[in-house]
């Protein structure tokens, strides 16, 4: 495909390869997927600064089949978008998929998972964050009492320093002991 129109310069590709966990082919595939979202605004050739200036709005990003069903999609996009609005540039998107790829190590995944679950951005996962996550996860089917009970349980069993919320280290501690995390926090593209 690259014979006629060069999507990225060699240097760009090298940079992306060095900065993400993707191979050249995967980077091009990510670009293809990105372009499919909004063919009118995303050019085929991105050798200039298009990669970090052209944004695809959140509502288009949400139509990606990989994210369509994900209850956290809004939060994910807003965490990864450089301006925090959820409108993604190509580089944001690449980074998002790189973190969620199979090759990414656990540390980085845990870090972003923490970010995602920390809805109010106070560097702690408090009961409010947990409640929000639960609501999204179960389509609001648990009643208020059950939700708050579950949240209390989470804090009870994972909060080591007893401040009633989970800090990053506590969160990481939970995740380190969860065998499923790596298999579930993972998107194939």
């Amino acid at each position, binding site marked *: 495909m690259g014979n006629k129109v060069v999507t990225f310069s060699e240097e760009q590709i090298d*940079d992306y390869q*060095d*900065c*993400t*966990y993707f*191979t050249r*082919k*995967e980077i091009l595939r990510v670009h293809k997927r990105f372009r499919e979202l909004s063919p009118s605004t995303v050019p085929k050739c991105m050798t200039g600064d298009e990669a*970090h200036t052209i944004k695809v709005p959140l509502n288009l990003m949400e139509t990606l089949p*990989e994210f*369509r*069903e*994900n*209850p*956290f999609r809004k939060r994910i996009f807003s965490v990864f978008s450089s301006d925090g609005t959820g409108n993604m540039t190509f*580089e944001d998107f690449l*980074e998002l998929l790189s973190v*969620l790829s199979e090759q990414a*190590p656990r*540390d*980085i995944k845990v*870090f972003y998972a923490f*970010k995602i*679950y920390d809805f109010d951005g106070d560097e*702690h996962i408090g009961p409010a964050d947990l409640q929000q996550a*639960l609501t999204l*996860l*179960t*389509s609001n*089917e*648990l009643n208020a009492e*059950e939700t708050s*009970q*579950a949240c209390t349980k*989470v804090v009870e*069993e*994972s909060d*080591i*320093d007893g*401040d009633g919320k*989970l*800090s*990053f*280290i506590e*969160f*990481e*501690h*939970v*995740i380190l*002991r*969860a*065998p*499923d*995390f*790596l*298999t*579930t926090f*993972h*998107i*194939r593209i």
Partner: protein
Amino acid sequence: MNEERRRGSQDASISDIEEENETEDTEHIPMNDCELGLPPPIIVTDNGGVCSKLDDAVPNNNHPVARRRPRPNHLHINITNCTSSDLSSHESLPSHKVAAMTPISLSPSWAKPHRLIRARKASLCSTPGYVTFRNPTNRISSSTYAEELIHAIENDESLMADSPASEQMRLQTVRGMAEAMELRRNVKEKICYNIGMRSQNSPSDPTKWFKYRLKKSFRKVNCGTRELLGHFELWGSTIKSIEGRFGTGVATYFRFLRSLFLINLCVFIMSFSFLVFPQLLDRFYHWNNTTISANSSVLVLEPKTYPYEEINSTFYIVDLVTGGGWLADTELFYGKYNSHSVHINEGEYYSIPDAYFFTTAACYLFTVIVLSIKVAKSYRKNFIEMQGGFTNVYAQRIFCGWDFGITNSEAAELRKQTLYNELRELLDEENNAERSGAKTLMQRLTLMACRVGVTILVGSLLIGSGVLVWFLLARQKMLVNEDVGTLEGRQQASMVMSLVVTGVMLILPMIFSRLCAIEQYSNPRNSVFITLLRTFGLEVAIVGVLLAYWQKSSKEVQVHSFNVLLVMWFNLNVPQCWETSLGQETYRLILVDFFIALIGTSFAEFIRSIVYQYVWKGIGAPEFDIARNTLNLIYNQTLFWVGFYYSPLLSAVIVVKLFITFYVKQACVLHNCKPPSRSWRAAQIQTVFLALTFLAIIGVLFTLGYTMTRVPASKGCGPFREIEHAYLIIKHKLNNIDKNSNWYTIGEWMFKPGVVAGYIIALCVGVYYMRAVAHARGAMVELLRNMLVLEAEDKIFLQKNIREAKSGRKYRNMCNAGRHYRF
């Protein structure tokens, strides 16, 4: 009781605090925000060194952990999340106070054990665990931040060295930074540039440079091949789509199927190229030394002109199913293989018995090695690295409950439903446990009785099926002996047994899973494991009985070998060959299983889903039973391993079968089944499957080893007809070795009893050492963990006191009263 623990362990620190508070009586808040909760300052190094501003602010850190911790000898990255503005929120706290208080404050030492563990882990995995964290606030502009990062990295010698290893580490660091892409690119460019400058300034050793280049290009090639291989990943997209719609549990089955398929494919390729192909060549062709000119001659393959060895039966379609008749007389089975060497040229031979023995041995060895690696890896990943214990049940449901791979709305809905159910169940369980303290005794007794009863029932079912198989085998033999003349009678008799065995293997697991429902296991996972174990027990029972029976009859054959010979000469043209009949038996079992368990059940599921869709909803859509299906795979694989030695071409059969299975099951899952309603701990179940498979092959190998060394090989057929036992072939080989060669001497020395004992002792010592180390590490982890908990308790305790001290008369009153204050 927490009070007491706290009191006991921390008396010293408490009294320190008291004094301080008494004298100064200021409003102390020993920990600021960033100390408490924000991500650990910046970097975990691979040698266990951790550095942060806070650490450096602790001159006399007399905490045991801190003392044990190696001081960082490199990598000082001082970008912490604490800026002065953080501290300024507690203006009343002079900075030297922070230092004085830190030994008993929570933060640095609190984070240390954890970081220590992680750093250890990173160094164990030999990948450096560099982690940075995205600048939490925008107090520093991104360019300054980048500068700081670059500076930090440049200060680290191990990162800036001009060697491939450090380049790898640099890459890891850049990739692992949780920063925006642009920033990372900046950092990377800068560092590369600086490295370039450095290496220009100090021209390094040309050989080193060359090596570096070589390694770099090698890595590039490596990357390329990985990319290429990823492209050819077998059934990758199919499995992905299944994973998307049905979650990781069902995908585990398909992954397992794929790995078995690949292993068997390798076995097939090996056995075909080294064993079957030469044998076929020998059967139809012979080597001829054709003279081209006066002094050169070429080896040419020529068809054998004389009629091939007579094939004494005509081919019937039904033979394909029974494995008898015409098929029994082909390379499919042991009996047909030559016991002589193929003569190729002057002094060049290809010995079929050697090929037979060593090829099959290599195939088994290959399978064992691949499987053990897989089991070990999977075990380490899912059990050891997770440190066992699943105490964070709720947190795991919430944080790991969502499978990000799901792309299908139905599956998503289902996953939500599952999570909801699981949480409800957990909460209910919790509430029930609180409620049902007293009532349980009677109920527990009945439940226990019920479980014991079911277990006994299952046990007797297992024994019963074993006896049934034994009985059928005996009957079959009788029939064969009686109806020696009629072909049909023999075929029927031989089919009955495989049909019944397959039927048992199909029906009993279903009964087992029904029975499990009666037992009311509180956790669905337990019931699945129990069913798994029982079904595996069934498989072991049946295959075990088959093997035992064959062993017994093969011995009988040998005892009466003279009779057999007579029978052979006078009544039957086909030589009595127990190996071949064993091969046929497994062949039949595998084939019948294919028709019944695969095609049959799939068809039944298809009908059911049709009925569900168009006729009657009450029947419910079929569900994909992972346990049953996977155990069916294991059963098949065990049969194959049993049969492979007696029928090398069985590998082709199993490869084809698994190939078809994949597509049938895929169609079945995608079109007929609804996703499983029970959520599976996919990561762990995979290990269990692999472990069961591994157990199966070990069992099979033991039996085969016994057979090869103890049960005499048939005298009338097969590659080993000229020797007593198959394993003697090694002995013959050893005897042929030149006794005077150096290799022989070395080999002889290596296998001297004393030396062998040395190996064993070394092995034992090694294992013991490893175990001791593991234990020590476990104890260490436990210690650190307890410390963590204690310190956390301290923190709360101190915070409470400070709060009281801040507002409270109580504290002052107590102090004024001059009594020793007990908390």
